[in-house]
């Protein structure tokens, strides 16, 4: 028995199983995960690692463990989407920490949420003066959502009755030198128009372009593979400054 080949085969099975299962579980940003989701992710990864390298266990039993855990997470996801009550029961609810500028100490104690944590999370939101806060809500994923008092909120064009242009999603027309015909059609343009625009900028072939996208104002942004920056800014700290002296 060649153990290396067994580990290779089992690792490939674990890798692709994990890939399939995580795709089934759907897209959830790491920052949006609750503590329970986070632990589930670690556990599923740990079982997959065991499937890959623990040759003293049958691969099927480890795989079944992985599938069961994924199935349980999926079932909880489905249940929590369907029932708001169960969702609240399992994931908890957002908690108001600051209400009308008043810190809710009792709620904080109940949640075992410390004042230091509150101040830190406010600072992360560039709030260094707690008196600027009208409402602060501790979300299920542990993040703090803050509503500043109206006098501390930035002015927006609507406040000044300034009319603004529509701003939507840009359409990618060339990606990695390949023209995306589908996107061209969606914005009611054709290849001739695109080639004309490229020629106007001295580009003879779309393959010279790394990225081209069209914004809702009709402006075409083009980035070519060949850049003409002669002295690019280097922020690297790989070299010891003392060496240069």
């Amino acid at each position: 028995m060649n153990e290396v080949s067994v580990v290779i085969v089992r690792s490939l099975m674990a890798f692709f199983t994990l890939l399939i299962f995580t795709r089934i579980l759907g897209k959830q940003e790491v920052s949006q995960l609750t503590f329970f989701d986070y632990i589930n992710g670690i556990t599923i990864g740990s079982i997959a690692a065991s499937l890959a390298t623990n040759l003293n266990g049958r691969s099927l039993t480890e795989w079944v463990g992985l599938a069961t855990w994924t199935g349980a997470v999926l079932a909880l996801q489905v249940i929590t989407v369907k029932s708001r009550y169960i969702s609240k029961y399992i994931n908890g609810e957002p908690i108001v920490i600051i209400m009308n500028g008043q810190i809710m100490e009792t709620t904080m104690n109940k949640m075992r949420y410390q004042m230091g944590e509150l101040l830190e999370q406010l600072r992360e939101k560039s709030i260094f003066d707690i008196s600027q806060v009208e409402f602060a809500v501790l979300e299920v994923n542990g993040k703090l959502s803050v509503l500043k008092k109206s006098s501390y909120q930035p002015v927006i064009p609507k406040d000044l009755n300034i009319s603004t242009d529509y701003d939507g999603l840009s359409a990618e027309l060339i990606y990695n030198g390949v023209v995306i015909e589908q996107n061209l059609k969606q914005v009611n343009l054709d290849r001739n128009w695109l080639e004309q625009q490229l020629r106007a900028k001295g580009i003879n072939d779309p393959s010279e372009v790394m990225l081209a996208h069209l914004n809702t104002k009709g402006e075409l942004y083009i980035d070519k593979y060949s850049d003409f920056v002669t002295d690019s800014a280097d922020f690297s700290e790989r070299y010891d400054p003392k060496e240069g002296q």
Partner: protein
Amino acid sequence: MNSEKAVAYLLPIVAIILFLVVMLSPSIFKGQGVYQEINRLTQDVNKEDWNSANARLLSLDKEWQKVINRIQFGAEREEINSLSRSLARLKGIINAEDKDSALIELAEINHYWLAIGR
């Protein structure tokens, strides 16, 4: 459903079926060869026909090596190693022509064999 979507769904299904076949390989590809050789060897030991038992042990070992290649990706390493160790011990016992110990070892080999893929 267009063909691209069908492939997107079929690919993971085929992959999972393939993985299950590999993981179930101890049950699927175990075969009966080793079991038959164990039974024949037990008969030889019972008859104390040591020449035949020696030849039978060689063919049992050969058959076992073939099975290892087929089941190694799904079976426990310890299951495989235990049976291999037991076979090595049996070789010495048969050379010593010790009927009682040979039967004990054969019973153990049989136990390991039945446990594989269960």
